[in-house]
């Protein structure tokens, strides 16, 4: 279902589609569609194409090498990317969180050093926010950064640092002072992960994943020029970023792509009384879900696409995208698991190579789907749990 109440971007939409179809490498598209991890080397040719076209940094101002897209154009761009099977999350922290913060708050040196490297896809970032005792209560963070000459010296640890082992730099918030309120005295630093004193310990997840870690800092010396914004301004910067992260994880387009794949499977997989899509109970659930997603897409449309929406300038209204986006993303994986039935039981990863046969004669679609359901439990936890997000709506939007 497309929402084009006043689609003055129809030409743009088709231009994006044409570009993706012409340049997205098959290896990237196929891996994306199968829910497989895509390594840096496989991704590079595609990223280079985006850079060449000037579309790598959709939201940045053109002065910094960005595409200078309006929010509406960015929204359409991501919709088409998902529809065409192009990866969305690729390098997303650098582009959508770190770079905008540098543009807004960074020094000239930071702009000159980081922005071109981010643009060219040379820096993979990990996020250093949560700590073992500072999760939902992020302001309780204790990992210290103490000024010492031209450096800050960092001691403590960060947890849930996804892809820390594959990342070149971390953007993180650290305590530079203890003041009357916990939100004060927090500062944001950009940290080279190769700096001596940093060690990364993987936290294996229950579904078999190995993407998350705890990162330990022992007397890690970070040059003062890597302080982003002023000392004590870290909480403001983190809020600036968390607002954008909420926006990013809405991912209706991703959920729609998952639904399309599920629908194809339900149409093709034969049961004793026709296909699964012929089963009235299952198809009722599937179509009910499709309608809930369409309804949510309307919300997304007004919040992200329609300049006339009074909510557009209210970042707290965006919170509903995170909550509902997580709910629906999880719901499609639940529906998928129910559709698979006992086919989903074998503990198989998504096939590492295309066309590989697991010997069980399962449809290509099946391996990896159960792990996807288990892994997707995290989307209502990270970036501020759904409970915290509902508090934001109650307090800041509804004034309770």
């Amino acid at each position, binding site marked *: 279902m497309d929402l084009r109440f006043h689609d003055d971007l129809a030409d743009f939409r088709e231009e994006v589609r044409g570009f993706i179809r012409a340049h997205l490498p098959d290896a990237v598209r196929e891996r994306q569609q199968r829910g497989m991890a895509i390594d840096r080397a496989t991704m590079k040719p595609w990223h280079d194409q985006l850079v060449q076209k000037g579309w790598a940094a959709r939201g940045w101002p053109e002065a910094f090498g960005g595409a200078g897209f309006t929010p509406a154009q960015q929204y359409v761009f991501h919709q088409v990317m998902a529809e065409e099977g192009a990866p969305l999350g690729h390098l997303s922290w650098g582009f959508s969180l770190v770079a905008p913060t540098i543009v807004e708050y960074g020094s000239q040196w930071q702009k000159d050093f980081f922005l071109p490297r981010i643009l060219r896809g040379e820096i993979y970032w990990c996020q250093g926010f949560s700590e073992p005792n500072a999760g*939902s*209560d992020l302001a309780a963070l204790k990992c210290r950064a103490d000024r010492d000459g031209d450096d800050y010296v960092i001691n403590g640890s960060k947890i849930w640092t996804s892809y820390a082992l594959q990342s070149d730099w971390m953007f993180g918030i650290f305590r530079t002072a203890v003041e009357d309120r916990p939100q004060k005295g927090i500062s944001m630093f950009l940290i080279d992960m190769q700096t001596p004193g940093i060690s990364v310990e993987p936290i*294996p997840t229950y579904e078999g994943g190995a993407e998350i870690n705890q990162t330990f800092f022992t007397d890690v010396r970070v040059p003062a020029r890597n302080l982003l914004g002023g000392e004590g301004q870290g909480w403001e910067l983190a809020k600036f970023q968390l607002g954008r992260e909420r926006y990013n994880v809405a991912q209706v387009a991703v959920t729609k792509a998952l639904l399309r794949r599920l629908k194809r499977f339900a149409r093709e997989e034969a049961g*004793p009384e026709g296909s699964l899509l012929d089963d009235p109970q299952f198809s009722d659930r599937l179509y009910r879900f499709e309608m809930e997603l369409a309804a949510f897409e309307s919300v997304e449309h007004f919040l992200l696409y329609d300049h006339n929406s009074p909510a557009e300038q209210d970042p707290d209204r965006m919170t509903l995208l995170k909550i509902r986006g997580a709910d629906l993303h*999880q719901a499609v994986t639940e529906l998928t698991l129910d559709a698979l*039935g*006992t086919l989903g039981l*074998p503990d198989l990863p998504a096939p590492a190579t295309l066309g590989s046969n697991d010997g069980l004669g399962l449809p290509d679609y099946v391996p990896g789907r159960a792990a996807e359901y288990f892994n997707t439990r995290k989307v209502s936890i990270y970036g501020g749990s759904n409970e915290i997000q509902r508090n934001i709506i109650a307090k800041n939007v509804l004034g309770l």
Partner: protein
Amino acid sequence: MLVGLTEDQALLRDSLTRLLDRIYPFETRKERVASEAGFAEADWQELVDLGITAAPFPEAMGGLGLGQSDLCVIQQGLGSHNLVSPYLSSVVLAGGLLAQAAPERAADLLGPVIAGRQHLALAYAERGSRYSLCHVTTRAERDGSGYRLEGRKTAVLWAQAAGRLLVSARSSGAAGERDGISLFLVDPQAEGVSLRPYATNDGHRAAEVFFSGVQLPADSLLGQEDTALPLIEAACDRAALALAAEALGCCLSLNAETLDYVRQRQQFGRPIGKFQVVQHACAYMSIQADTLEATVFAAAQHADRQVDLATQRRLVSTSKAQAGWSGRFIGETALQLHGGIGMSADLPIGHFLKRLSAIRVLFGDPDYHVRRVKQLDAVA
């Protein structure tokens, strides 16, 4: 707890819990699941010594003659520790079917199972059969005095551990017909039988089993030719109820773990269990577990009193559907309330969710059981 146990049942529950506390702490479970077999025969022998392999069989067959309620107490206990073992598939499902289908041979055939020397597996499901038990295309053709078996079975729980397979096959009629299904005892080592074994995502084991021109002697037929379906249905119902009881054990452990966690996890200067949003989630987890407990034991107690079959099936369906609903809600909520750490492989939380997710689809998911109740109503 809502359901009062008899003195014997309380004793059974307590000794099983003590045993599993000793031999199957979470760290041991991790090692067992990572091993080739998925479980340890030494652990199994301890369970045998406790008597649970003998529990569901009549005394004449060397069993203890316990009922469905007792079996649910056992399964709940196994679920509370998320035990990975062939107990359900070998003893409850295949063993239970064997005892009903061929009582005259059961004493001989069940002896090694009760003693813990051999496991059984029931191959009943087929690709494309979804949850239907009569959608059988595997064929058993008369061949001389015996049969020739041809076909493929899917998701055969613990087939790789089994010394004998029970196989449903069509001796007449077409896929979907209730008549014409027979039950055979098959040696997995026999010529023409091949297995593709795999681990399931809850740490258990299963296999796809292929039969290619397998020659079966006449005495491999269990019970009467063409009439096995009602027996298979009854066995799967007992297994479904037992699984619902296992889900109950998982749910109660998750609730206890989660309550512990929200009491000790401090955020915003107090335990997170002091926040209403967390309290309400915990309250609903408790309601979901109570509901599951009550439905499971109501079904089991009715079964022990042998009420009419339609009522029995309705109660089993209600229990199994409730296990699916409660299991998903409790599993997901427990993980959510644990936050990021709930995703860790080193906590039992996610592993319970995995088991509950498998239980949800085994022997019919909630949708299937809703449909079955609807059909029972239409017939009545």
